[in-house]
């Protein structure tokens, strides 16, 4: 290997916080060759983003202590002056971040933000020429009608388009290194596949050395040449792609690979049970008025979020509901639970109609059907103790009071793998996985028959995800629960579901047994969804690329 383009040696980053010293990065070393894609893989708080941002000086602050070395073609960056760093940032090392919505400034046109980057480094380029360059770059990342899109505001572009524009901005100054920090995490799988393809092409055609930071081993297998596995601020494993995937040395790498839910591996056998319909949804419709008319709402101004959906959930089974963002999954859940008023259609629970029931009429039924939300950070009131949160349904439904409520809440905590001593703690004292356990305990408090789980593991790291999924399975077995399990990740859905319904643009386009939907999909949308899922298997990924399946 020739001299590396970027060379990081024994990088250490500590932050002084109110809670004490946080050792975010504890001795990271790696080399990046001029044409390769290096993936840095790790779960949250592994230090992968801090590592990348420190290289270009974005973590510098009075509270940060940075040690070690990061050289770009021999030039030390960690001790470089601010003026020198400014010449590197954007021009020689460009970055792309996770959420293209929040990463663009919402008040400026996309083109202007690209022009700003160009002009920051090349003062001699006038606005007109910079704008032409911006259009050229937008074309290079395959944005259709670039000449028109250059004047769009970020919110006027779709998520995938925004991330392309972000990449265009990063490329405008022809950097030598591109650092992409979870560039596809906020995107749907089909869009993710396109962005990954774009990154691969740019790397090949422009000799753009790329550092790809991700938590998703599927993404790594699709694009990386070499892999660096990080855990708690340290590199636990590094090597060529195939070595890391097929002969991992570090136990952590093995556990990470083991936690992946692969579509092409048969999920655990699910026990057969006596079944009776619990929830039957027929022709359910939910419209939202876009604009209120002066006197009455006009039909033209509404958006149909749920379009004549029919499905059923039987007792003791899990129906997986899969679909991309904006497909109407969450709206469907809320409409089924009567948290939103259905526009038309029928929802029968244990044989009786619940669509259109008043709040008061729904009250006793709320015991039977509970919901677990996606974001365990946002869905627990930060000012309440865990015990209060878990015991609240008991209080609201008048089931138990005083000592009895406390006892039951503690029992529930124990049931979801927390300890009864956690009763008096606050949500911020818990990790994401623990908080999701609290959410599950709260849903279980009233011994419901149906739990609607709306992306319950999407915000969790893979190793934690496996634990939460196991817990859900155990509880189902033990209590005979039924789940309506909603997720955008078809791998997760396959792993937990008896049957799967695929939702697209408000409609259920396909429904069938988990095996049938995943292995013999009938609807073209299901097929494209499955084809877009990155396979955490480098050989398979290469084979798929070579076969160039026309998806």
């Amino acid at each position, binding site marked *: 290997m020739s001299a590396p383009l970027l060379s990081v040696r024994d990088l250490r980053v500590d932050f002084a916080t109110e809670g004490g010293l946080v050792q975010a990065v504890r001795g990271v070393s790696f080399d990046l060759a001029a044409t390769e894609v290096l993936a840095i893989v790790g779960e949250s708080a592994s230090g992968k983003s801090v590592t990348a941002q420190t290289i270009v000086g974005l973590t510098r602050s009075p509270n940060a202590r940075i040690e070690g070395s990061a050289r770009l073609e021999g030039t030390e960056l960690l001790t470089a002056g601010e003026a020198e760093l400014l010449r590197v940032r954007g021009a020689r090392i*460009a*970055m792309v*971040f996770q959420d293209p919505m*929040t990463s663009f400034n*919402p*008040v400026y046109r996309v083109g202007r933000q690209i022009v700003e980057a160009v002009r*920051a480094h090349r003062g001699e380029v006038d606005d007109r020429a910079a704008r032409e360059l911006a259009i050229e770059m937008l074309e290079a990342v395959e944005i259709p009608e670039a000449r028109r899109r250059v004047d769009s*505001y970020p919110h006027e572009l779709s998520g995938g388009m925004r991330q392309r524009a972000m990449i265009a901005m990063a490329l405008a100054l022809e950097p030598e290194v591109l650092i992409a920090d979870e560039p596809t995490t906020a995107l749907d799988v089909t869009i993710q596949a396109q962005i990954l393809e774009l990154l691969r092409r740019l790397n090949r055609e422009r000799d753009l050395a790329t550092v790809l930071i991700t938590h998703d081993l599927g993404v790594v297998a699709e694009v990386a040449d070499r892999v660096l596995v990080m855990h708690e601020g340290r590199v636990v494993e590094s090597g060529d792609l195939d070595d890391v995937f097929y002969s991992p040395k570090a136990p952590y790498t093995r556990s990470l690979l083991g936690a992946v839910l692969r579509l092409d591996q048969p999920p655990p056998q699910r026990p057969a049970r006596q079944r009776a319909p619990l929830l039957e949804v027929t022709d359910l419709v939910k419209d939202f008025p876009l604009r209120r008319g002066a006197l009455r709402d006009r039909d033209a101004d509404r958006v149909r979020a749920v379009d004549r959906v029919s499905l059923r959930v039987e007792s003791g089974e899990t129906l997986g509901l899969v679909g991309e963002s904006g497909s109407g999954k969450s709206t469907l859940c809320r409409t089924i639970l009567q948290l939103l008023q259905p526009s038309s259609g029928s929802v029968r629970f244990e044989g009786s109609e619940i669509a259109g029931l008043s709040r008061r009429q729904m009250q006793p039924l709320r015991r039977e059907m509970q919901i677990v939300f996606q974001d365990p950070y946002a869905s627990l009131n930060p000012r309440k103790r865990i015990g209060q949160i878990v015991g609240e349904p008991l209080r609201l439904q008048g089931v138990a009071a005083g000592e009895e409520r406390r006892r039951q809440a503690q029992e529930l905590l124990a049931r979801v793998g927390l300890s009864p001593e956690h009763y008096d703690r606050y949500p911020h004292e818990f990790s994401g996985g623990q908080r999701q356990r609290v959410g599950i305990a709260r849903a279980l408090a009233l011994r419901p028959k149906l739990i609607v789980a709306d992306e319950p593991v999407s915000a969790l790291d893979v190793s934690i995800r496996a634990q939460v999924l196991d817990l859900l399975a155990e509880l189902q077995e033990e209590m005979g629960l039924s789940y309506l399990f909603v997720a955008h990740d078809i791998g997760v859905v396959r792993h937990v579901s008896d049957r799967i319904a695929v939702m697209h643009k408000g409609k259920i386009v396909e429904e069938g047994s988990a095996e049938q939907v995943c292995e013999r999909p009938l609807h073209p949308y299901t097929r494209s969804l499955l084809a877009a899922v990155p396979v955490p298997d480098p050989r398979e990924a290469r084979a798929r690329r070579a076969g160039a399946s026309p998806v």
Partner: protein
Amino acid sequence: MARFALRRLGGMVLVLFAISVIVFAIFAVIPSYDPAAAIAGKNRTPELVANVEETWGFDDPLPVQYLTMMKLVFTGELISYSSELDVSEQIWEGLPATLSLCIGAAVIWMFFGLLLGYLSAVHAGRLADRLLTILSVGGISMPVVLLAPACLYFLAIETDLFPTGGYVPLSEDPLDWAYHLVLPWASLAVLFVGFYSRVLRSNMVEAMEEDYVRTARAKGLSEGQVRVRHVLRNSLIPIVTLFGLDFASVLGGAAIITEAVFNLQGVGQYAADSIANLDLPPIMGVTLFGAFFVVLFNTLVDIAYAYLDPRIRLGESAR
């Protein structure tokens, strides 16, 4: 846009109507309110009072009286019951002083408020920030009723540094105009300077954590460019709302105390005098004048907002 303008215009009419009814109703229920007796003067006889009631229409039913008054408002013929001077003329006469006071104070409070807020945010957590915080909290806690007389006493009466009051028209002598207004401007602006600097500081501190600021840094903008183009620019959006409403309320009457203390003979002082005399027509006139500005600036704020934040489109409900 046309729809938006039309709806806002309709809203404005409704608001002004409601306010006029409320003002009128308040006077109708004040027990000691007897305009006829006031007009008839000190040496009134019951006959004279009855005569006045007849000619001025005070014996009409209340709705009729209200309509009569509104007609006068719209034709600009409303006259005071106590001085019998034309109300719109009086407001017009007071307007230069009031505008001078309010616009000048607004320029001062925006300039210093934003400057101090910016400096505070840039040095957040450090000594400069703490000193500025103390300063602005001090400013916020300084009511005009205390500050204006204190300024007048210590800086004008005791030390002769500034004139003790009065208004000199700008066209007469610009220097003297400003000299007479320095203390009123300062007294009115101090509270807003403190308040605006706090708001801007917290907006900016929050904006500095935004992803797009990180992007701006990552593309190689200097710290100054990042602060001005991305942090400050986006933090100013909520300030626009505040400013529109505050400026309108100052113009519409919140400057009464300052005007009265420094004897500026503006619209506010006219309002204060009329309230002391329980003189309905000028109060009605000044109230509608103020309400008009509040509603107008509210609309301007919304238009400015849509211009400053492209995600907001006029005429659509926020989603």
